[in-house]
């Protein structure tokens, strides 16, 4: 090899090596720098796209303030952000056990939606006919059951026939969406497919309408952290995730772990569905989950599958979303711009993980070293 090297085969300009043991503060410095760089580029893009900014560059201050104003401008906005964070966090938490097992469940959207559907179905048929407490309890159980079943179906196929879970769970999202369309046709005889907000089945108000949702998400985070890190189940999930053969060797029933974990994943999605149905909307559309099932994948990954870190990542995403919506409102620009802004910033943040995990070696750098 050395011979061919000497014969002048060009070494690649850059090569990568895995980096370990970067100090905590340094990795966070990189993340913060990435966020700052993302924000800067956003400002530049906005400057090009928004006429009002071009006319009056002084408004760039307003542009950046909107990120704070969007989530912290009024106490109502703070609660809205916390609630949105809680819902996104709950779905992300639901995905995490499966992800730790390297089971790529991208069906959280559908699993949550059928949870909403289950709860709303109970509310639709039984609302006002049985005591409110019992109604809410039944809505809760129906949501968990529906979510669990939706998670179990792809798991059964994976465990029995080793089907590709990514495709399977993805397809189940569409089935869930059409199931909702189907029931809306039945439930709304006027043909509008728009179910007005139901009168019954409202989650009790504690402090305000959102407090309970936030508390449930918090408890869920702590509970899942303990389950994944300190329980036998959690350990089994990690082993199956590391290597199925190792798991088999040490006598773990892999099939059972897959099924059990996916039921848990689905049930937790169903729980979030219940929070959406009973705590917020009390109606259903095909958009009731609104893509959060997909955003949750990113939240879980960015947090390295650590439930506590997910509070940060889901918070970051919601603050960006609300800030971007505020920009759209304040500068009266089309709804596509917020997506561009959030996209740019996320690109930088995801990119920074690369630089935290890998070291780049440049060719000239090396030759200089050789000379020395």
């Amino acid at each position: 090899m050395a011979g061919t090297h000497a014969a002048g085969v060009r070494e690649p300009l850059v090569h990568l090596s895995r980096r370990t043991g970067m100090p905590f503060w340094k990795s966070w410095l990189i993340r913060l720098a990435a966020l700052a760089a993302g924000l800067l580029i956003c400002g530049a893009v906005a400057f090009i796209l928004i006429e009002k900014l071009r006319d009056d560059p002084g408004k760039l201050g307003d542009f950046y303030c909107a990120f704070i104003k969007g989530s912290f401008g009024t106490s109502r906005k703070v609660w809205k952000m916390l609630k949105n964070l809680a819902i996104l966090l709950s779905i992300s938490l639901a995905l995490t056990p499966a992800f730790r097992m390297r089971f790529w469940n991208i069906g959280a959207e559908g699993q949550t939606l059928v949870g909403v559907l289950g709860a709303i179905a109970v509310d639709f048929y039984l609302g006002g006919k049985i005591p409110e407490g019992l109604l809410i309890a039944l809505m809760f159980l129906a949501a968990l059951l529906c979510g669990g079943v939706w998670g179990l179906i792809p798991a059964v196929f994976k465990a029995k026939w080793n089907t590709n879970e990514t495709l399977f769970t993805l397809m189940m999202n569409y089935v869930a969406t059409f199931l909702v369309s189907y029931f809306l046709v039945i439930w709304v005889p006027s043909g509008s497919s728009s179910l007005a907000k139901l009168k019954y089945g409202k989650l009790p108000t504690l402090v305000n309408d959102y407090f309970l949702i936030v508390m449930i998400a918090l408890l869920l985070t702590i509970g899942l952290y303990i389950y994944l890190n300190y329980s036998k189940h959690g350990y089994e999930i990690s082993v199956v995730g590391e290597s199925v053969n190792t798991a088999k060797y040490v006598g773990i029933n892999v099939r059972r772990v897959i099924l059990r974990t996916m039921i848990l994943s689905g049930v937790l999605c169903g729980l979030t569905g219940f929070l959406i149905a009973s705590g917020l909307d009390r109606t259903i559309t095909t958009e009731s989950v609104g893509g959060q099932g997909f955003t949750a994948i990113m939240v879980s990954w960015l947090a390295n599958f650590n439930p506590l870190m997910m509070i940060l990542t889901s918070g970051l995403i919601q603050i960006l979303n609300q800030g971007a919506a505020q920009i759209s409102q304040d500068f009266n620009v089309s709804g596509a711009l917020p997506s561009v802004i959030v996209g740019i910033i996320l690109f930088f943040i995801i990119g920074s993980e690369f630089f935290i995990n890998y070291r780049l070696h440049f060719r000239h750098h090396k030759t200089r070293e050789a000379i020395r």
Partner: protein
Amino acid sequence: MKKIAALLLSLILCIGCVSVIAEPVAQENIKLGVILLHDELSTYDLNFYNSVMEAAANLGLSEDQVIVKRNIPESEACAEEARDLVDEGCNIVFADSFGHESFLLEVAKEFPEVEFCHATGTMAHTENLPNFHNAFASIYEGRYLAGIAAGMKLNELKAAGKLKGEKPLMGYVGAFTYAEVISGYTSFYLGAKAVCPDVEMKVQFTGSWYDEKEEKAAAEALIALGCDLISQHADSMGAPTACENAGIPNISYNGSTLESCPNTFIVSSRINWAPYFEYLVRQKVAGEPIATDWVGTIQTGSVVLTDVNTAAAAEGTADAIADVRDELLAGVRHVFDTAAEGFITVNGEALTSYMADVDTDEAFTADTEAVSDGYFHESEYRSAPYFNVAIDGIELLNSKF
């Protein structure tokens, strides 16, 4: 005693609210908040956006007197954004999508001093909330006029021997089997029938208000079935694009699609919401109450047609539309004319009576007789359409939406 005191207190509060509502607001203190389901990419929301901006310009409102919120789903999010608009100081909050209604209604109860106005909704006249209002327009008249253009185009094709089948056949892409859509395609069909008596129509539903792919596919399917002309009631560019690609004439909705479809676009009807927004601000400034149900008409400038594209339309279309428009305005012609022999029939029989579901209730009971004086009284007993009769000559290809 406590009860009486509470009653008195609430009475005083109530009177307080009414007087607050009736109090004039200086125009510079008006703040209008607008909640849109999608953004400018949807022709439906774009139409509202343009109307708000037109009204603001006509009234001389400054930029910060209008706040637009885009992409607000039909969920608790609508209530959240409505409350946020109140926090921002809005005294008129408007939402544009049917499914927003029950959420907006909830917020209306929380803020009696703010006016909440909702397009296409049905609940205001039964809820009796002084600060909650519905609005729509007699767009069936606009569709009828657009139908005249369609009928004339079919006559032209017939005369030139260019019909695909024996009888002139139209295709219609609809969103849902809902009164708003049924009223729309029926009035369009009747307009065409008024000038082209043997016309028939096939309707394909998409089950969505905005689904470009589905709408395009539906239009292509209708063209493949031999339709000579297509119209639509759905909010994307799907159907017009399919028509332009296939060279089939198209009657559009929500606004002109001339730019993208220069060879096939004939004319488009649309609701201009600017008169409604102007009305809202004027009433508020004058301290006058806002109508519970407001219906925009040709007269108010709410029901409008775009310019006719002479490259695609039959000769004399613009003049014919103008003549019929005058007849509608004069009240000598009615869109849902049940008296004319063989014009509107159901299973071969004339339509002499029809109970419509005007008051919203959970069972969707038909409650109001809508046929009298020789025509169906659309949008008179509430602003949103309630004509949902299946008349002869229109075939629904899929009705499960």
